């Protein structure tokens, strides 16, 4: 799930991007810290083991990137993700997940995260994944893509009928290929477009999800009488 890895930003400013890690399992956290620090353009500014510490570190360090587990002993990591999305400085976030299960991934994505990093298996390319997100990419797992296909294609009358919640043909094509396990390079080859274009389409899909999930939230709220 990685795009071109040149992070011109870091090189230009000369400073590595600061990364905040929030993970309550100690050894997993150490693993991640080592993996991220191994990357030249990244530097771990702090590791928090619970939400309270995470908040404090977030305010203090104002990190460029936040990597957070969702199940924390004193709360949900989604709050930090939301804070990262709403931060006045440029701040991206990703969730740390064992299996990339859909429910938690969707929660994180809806809160504004760009995806998740699997902590099972090797975390060696965690740094690369972070850099590609800082570059503007949105990694998407096959499961998420499959789910989005059901979410964003309006088959029933429930979804609002604006263009924002509907996928274009190209987006649908790309999503289907991602859902079947193809990587971006392969998709670009198959569809005869550039890898960058593939990334743009995937980003657009995320934005539509945000809009659609906003509308869904509005619809849900109005249905239960909040609005």
């Amino acid at each position: 799930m990685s795009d071109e890895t040149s992070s011109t930003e870091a090189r230009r400013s000369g400073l590595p991007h600061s990364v905040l890690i929030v993970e309550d399992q100690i050894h997993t956290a150490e693993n991640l810290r080592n993996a991220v620090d191994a990357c030249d353009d990244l530097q771990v500014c702090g590791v928090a083991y619970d939400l309270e510490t995470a908040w404090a570190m977030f305010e203090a360090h104002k990190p460029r990137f936040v990597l957070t587990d969702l199940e924390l002993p004193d709360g949900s990591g989604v709050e930090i993700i939301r804070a990262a999305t709403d931060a006045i400085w440029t701040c991206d976030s990703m969730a740390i997940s064992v299996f990339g299960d859909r429910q938690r991934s969707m929660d994180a994505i809806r809160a504004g995260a760009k995806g998740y990093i699997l902590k099972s298996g090797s975390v060696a390319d965690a740094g690369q994944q972070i850099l590609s997100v800082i570059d503007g990419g949105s990694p998407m797992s096959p499961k998420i893509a499959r789910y989005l296909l059901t979410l964003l294609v309006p088959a029933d009358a429930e979804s609002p009928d604006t263009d924002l919640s509907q996928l274009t043909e190209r987006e649908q094509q790309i999503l289907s290929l991602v859902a079947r396990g193809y990587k971006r390079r392969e998709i670009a080859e198959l569809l005869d477009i550039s890898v960058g274009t593939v990334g743009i389409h995937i980003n657009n899909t995320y934005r539509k999800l945000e809009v659609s999930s906003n509308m869904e939230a509005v619809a849900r709220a109005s249905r239960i009488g909040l609005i």
Partner: protein
Amino acid sequence: MTALGSSLVTVIGLMAVFIAIPTEPYPDIDGAIKITSAQVCRLSGDSCDQKIAPQNVTLPYYIKPNIHSGIHSARFTFFFDMTAGPDDVTAIYLPKFSDAVSVHVNGVAVTRKQPADEQALLFHSWHRPALSIVPNVVLNRNDNLVSVDLSADYFNNLSLFPVYIGDAAALDFAHQVRLILRVGMARVNFALAILAGFSVLFFWLFRRRDHKFLWLMAANFSVSAVCFHWVYPNFLYDYRIWVVLWNATIGLFAWCLLGFTASLISARLQAFQLGVLAGLFAGICVLVLLPDEEFATGLAGYQLLCLCLGLFVLAVLVAKREKTSWLNFSVLFGLYAIALTLTSIEWLSQYVWPNFVSIMTTPLIPVTYFLGLLWIIFYQLAAALQQYEKLTITLQSTVDQKSQELRESYEKLNAQTQRQAIDEERQRILLDLHDGIGGQLVNTLAYMASQPDQDVVLQTALENALSDMGLMIDSLEANDSISTQLGMLRGRLSPLLDKHHIALKWEVDEEPVLSVAGPSHNLSLLRIVQEAITNAIKHSKASTITVATERCSISVTDNGHGFDLEPVAGRSRTQGHIGLMGMKRRAKSIPATLEISSSNIGSKVTLCWEMSDNAGDNAN
């Protein structure tokens, strides 16, 4: 045309009925004698015309006019003997006559000099009976001479009906009754018609779209105008003009009746109606302008025109009887026909055969009309009520039905929401379980990786457990799409592939569809594929592994050095061999067949199963 014919036949038939009814309209009165014969002579001035011999006639007797302008008169003379005692008062009672009357007994006038205006030539009294008290001093015992002088306009008949002479008290009673029946009823009809007109107008205000009520109202007012003639025949000085006006109101009434009928059956006769109105107006103009000689004929002709119009109205009703209910049609037809017949009898009596029907028909006409009016109004009311009831019932049943549907959909929604909530809860618990255990496993592996001494067996065991849990979760979350689960597997295997520097060719072109789909079967498939790929990574020393799918098969190919399919007897079973047995068993449970081919240039593991009929289009 047949409508016209059947209407005509009905009218003639009814006429026959009326003719056939024998009645005695002038019964004997106790205490009085009825005079039914007299001698008549035409009057010129105050005495009989010598040129024409007097005739003996039976009463009732009609004299047609023999002049073409002015007034014609006649004198009826008869004798009677006194019947009353010396203390009783005698009176002469004339129930019906036309037109102005003056009675002399033994040369003495017993009728009042009518307060006629100077300009008026006659005081018309055809509409009322006359009773005159005869003073006893005038009377002889026997052979009293009575002369009844009648005068009428040149266009009206002279007529005298049986005369009664006798006890004043008895005759007074008969006179009162007759007054009520003729004069009183005329006034009642007049007032009733006006009242009815306003009532219908009021009625129309609630049903403005219904034009027939406007017609009905107009008909009512024209009826009142017609009745006015019976109330005040002496209203205008010029009787000729008055008569013309009266005929105009008759024509108007017939025209309103036409309009009402047309509206009732929704016929499009507007042009015709206008034509009729123009014709009636023209007729009136003709009547006004006609010279005196033709006036009587003109009247007869105009009234015949109105009668024909009435017949046409009846025919129109018959022709379009399907436009209204059967009950409404029969009642209206009956009443129309009777009214038309009565009017025709009147006309025939006036102009052709005087007194050919013995029954008194004139009072029946307004009665018929008002019956018709009442019927129309009540019928409308009943129809409206019925419609209202029907509407209410329909509305009620619709409301009930919709309420029921709403209730059912609410129940369904509730059930669905509940089910959804339970499913979500179940899912959450499951995930928490896996996440908890998985997180611990990951942590343990991380710890182990950081240790100097690494227990490979333990590590492998833990890693296998972790990857199997990943498979399990994917089987539930991938929307039943096998290709998606394969994609997730690829993601999990990527680090291992990179570590061994193996390239992966991904050819998942078709969505594999199991005949018996479901998470458990999908899971079995994925476990087999995972094992096949892992075997290839660990043992084949290949540089490229290809994963390809078709609708009914998944294959894993590698370009390694192959492996032994059959264990050599004596050698202990290798882990790999046990693994192959497990894979075969798992495949059979799906059910699917596992085919393995291996050579020194590569191996291919193929899973295939039966084609399914149902379209499982989760993916494209």
